[in-house]
């Protein structure tokens, strides 16, 4: 008797697993193409036909100064813009949460623009203004642009954390003799840390992957995605795939380390 219900549960489970497997296949298919092609022995454009296995591209990659330079640019821009947007965003979120002032709702509204508006609109608007006030396009404009589109994401993450923030702990801190700055660093900041970290991670991810906005404000500076874009016309060489594979491995290691760290913390509790 009981079999009928159990059988149904098993069937739906199989269906669910199959469905998810197909979606994951869809998500990972192009990545596996990248990884496999990074080990392709072909040397002729457009580097599509399979000519046997080699790891040579992983060595040759380090002679490709243009590619490495673009990767270095991407990392510099990502690190600097993440730092800046995290600091500015965190201060802004806390400030807007704590203080009332004129024009707050306007800033609030402006924050949604970089999130919802198509990136291309933000890109060309920055391009026009930078060219209007004659800021030479390059590292500076790239960093300014990346900070601009990252700030809202940091703020929204920190704000989500602030929503559950108990104001009385700040008052308790000041009651115990800490001034505002001490309270901010000893009490407010640690409590908000997970939100800040989440925002920073998002800012970093958005920055290293950004194409559209960078495309308009880069000037002569090539970031890694822009370098890839250039090479697409002639066919992406396997050394680009090799670098992507290395980045992928690095991020997976990073994710596994941080996630298992979180798991351990949970266990301790």
């Amino acid at each position: 008797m009981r079999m009928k219900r159990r059988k149904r549960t098993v069937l739906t489970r199989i269906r669910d697993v199959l469905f998810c497997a197909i979606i994951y296949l869809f998500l990972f298919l192009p990545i596996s193409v990248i990884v496999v092609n990074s080990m392709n022995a072909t040397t002729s454009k457009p580097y599509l036909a399979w000519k046997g296995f080699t790891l040579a591209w992983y060595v040759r990659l380090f002679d490709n100064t243009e590619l490495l330079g673009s990767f270095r640019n991407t990392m510099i821009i990502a690190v600097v813009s993440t730092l800046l947007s995290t600091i500015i965003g965190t201060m802004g979120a806390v400030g807007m949460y704590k203080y009332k002032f004129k024009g707050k709702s306007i800033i609030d509204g402006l924050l949604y623009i970089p999130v919802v508006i198509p990136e291309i609109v933000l890109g060309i608007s920055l391009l026009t203004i930078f060219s209007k006030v004659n800021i030479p396009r390059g590292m500076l404009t790239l960093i300014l642009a990346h900070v601009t589109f990252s700030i809202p994401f940091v703020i929204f993450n920190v704000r989500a954390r602030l929503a559950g923030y108990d104001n009385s702990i700040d008052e308790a801190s000041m009651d115990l003799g800490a001034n505002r700055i001490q309270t901010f660093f000893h009490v407010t900041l640690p409590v908000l840390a997970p939100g800040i970290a989440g925002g920073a991670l998002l800012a970093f991810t958005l920055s290293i992957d950004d194409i559209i906005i960078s495309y308009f404000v880069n000037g002569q500076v090539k970031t890694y995605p822009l370098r890839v874009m250039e090479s697409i016309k002639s066919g992406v060489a396997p050394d680009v795939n090799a670098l992507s594979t290395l980045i992928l491995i690095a991020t997976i290691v990073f994710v596994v380390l941080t996630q298992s760290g979180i798991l351990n913390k949970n266990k301790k509790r």
Partner: protein
Amino acid sequence: MGYIVELENVDKIYGENHVVKSLNLKVEEGEFLTLLGSSGCGKTTTLRMIAGFEEPTNGNIRVEGEAIEDKEPYERDVNTVFQSYALFPHMTIYDNIAYGLKMKKVPKDEVQERVLHMMDLVQLGGFEKRYPSQLSGGQKQRVAIARALINRPKVLLLDEPLGALDLKLRKQMQLELKRLQKKLNITFIYVTHDQEEALTMSDRIAIMHDGILDQLGTPTEIYEKPATRFVATFIGETNIFDGAVADVKDGQVQVTIENGIISAKDFMSKSGQYVTISVRPEKMKFRDTPTTDFTIPAVVKDYVYVGSIIKCVVELPNGNEIRIERLAGQELPELGTTIYPYWDMEDAVVIHGQEQEMLRAMDSIQFS
């Protein structure tokens, strides 16, 4: 007429956790049965198995004699009142209550008539267009009850339905639930961890402990004749003495405990058996000298005034404390004096077969 709900050797195992152990329970039609126990005792799991949200690992569940293990929750003629109310936040009160009837494709006119009638019955007339978020806790509770009752279930399952309410409202709702149950003559299976609530409302109480049904009986039976050490300590306050039977005669036993000898009325014990004796604080008496039946001395340590009652804490030579309860104004021993507690033989309950529990209790701090 048979039983409306029968559980036969029901087990529930989650991985390594044996949550419900070989449970046998028969619920009579029209009764108010309470599953009582502390959290994690398996009472909610039992309720969820009857509702169909969980499947028993082993055993059978029957409603009106019909096996229901293979039925989905939506196919069963039982309804549930959830602990969290589980009101649909995106529907009005009217739509919440009408939900079950709509599922059964009851004609619209009849739905309206029955919903409005039910809303009157739970005193929510005029609230049709409100949303759950606009109601107080007590009102949400009434909606949850109305939503379940409108389907005229054979059995209503209630999972700690009053847990989230404040004390005063809880008392009021207890009476109201009882009234509804009598009026509609529907079988209620009620889960709670609140022993007072169970004693007030139930026709019968099933006390669960570590997945096992310890005792099933009327509130009076449970209070007066606890079958296990756990039941004795869980229901009301009591003094517990563990010892070995020294002598049996004329339906009376003498038991040797750590501090001396105590006695009780009992026909079942044999010499040398380990037994547990439970005596309610209000049944305790005291005198200045020992007798052959009661030889334990005790020093009066403290008084606690609880309104009209005074609790007197006395300490036995081994450091265990026992409590004696008196109405205010009645005579009590003075602080620091030594007394000899005793009781009328029939006021003590002798509990057998609790060696395991006894050992466990001796390992931990004695509770009373």
